């Protein structure tokens, strides 16, 4: 099956989103990691700082890819096709999963504070990152799956 212009853009969007989610997760989780080991004399601080820098650079690259992608969409005049009903359905599904991830993890965190002395700020940051990354990855997956019998 030969991919047409809109198909290529759909695949390209999903790949950019996966890359962006990975970059954002690396940047934020490494940052959270650096805050955890801050004040200790751990030797991995340099490695974690490196990961924070790498993650932030990859995030900048992802932003550039988004910009470049939006120019391609404009050039192909494919904005409406790329935001059709199936895409909206996939977006809704991904946002619902993101919402329940956020909601579920917060409701797990509340009773967990009764048992352990947790650093709430770090956990809230972790949950916030997951609530962004999970729907992006799910949306990308939904955009790429269910294409059996494509002609």
């Amino acid at each position, binding site marked *: 099956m030969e991919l*047409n212009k*809109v*198909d290529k853009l*759909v695949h390209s969007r999903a790949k950019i989103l996966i890359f962006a989610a990975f970059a954002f997760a690396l940047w934020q989780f490494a940052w959270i990691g650096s805050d955890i080991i801050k004040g200790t004399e751990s030797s991995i601080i340099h490695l974690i700082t490196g990961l924070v820098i790498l993650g932030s650079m990859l995030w900048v690259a992802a932003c550039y890819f988004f910009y470049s992608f939006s120019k391609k969409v404009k050039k192909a005049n494919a904005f*409406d*096709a*790329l935001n*059709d*009903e*199936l*895409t909206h*359905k996939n977006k809704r599904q991904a946002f619902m999963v993101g919402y329940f991830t956020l909601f579920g993890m917060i409701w797990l965190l509340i009773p967990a504070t009764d048992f352990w002395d947790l650093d709430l700020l770090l956990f809230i940051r972790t949950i916030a990152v997951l609530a962004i990354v999970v729907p992006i990855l799910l949306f990308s997956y939904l*955009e790429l799956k*269910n*294409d*059996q*019998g*494509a*002609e």
Partner: protein
Amino acid sequence: MQSEQKYFANHLKVLRAQRNYTQADLAELVGVTRKTINTIENRVFIPSAFLALKLAKAFELTVEDIFYFEEH
């Protein structure tokens, strides 16, 4: 008594073949992605009334000529 279940089915693939349209051709005609057409054909995705009417217009048929209930 066993209840009958209704499934939203369509003749899209047959109609497309009769007119020598590829999924991409039809997608372009109605302004969606090729995958949207594929998922409708495979009954993974049920289109809105708006898209169903657009598809009917593209084939110069009525919505009922394309979409129907299949009972199991």
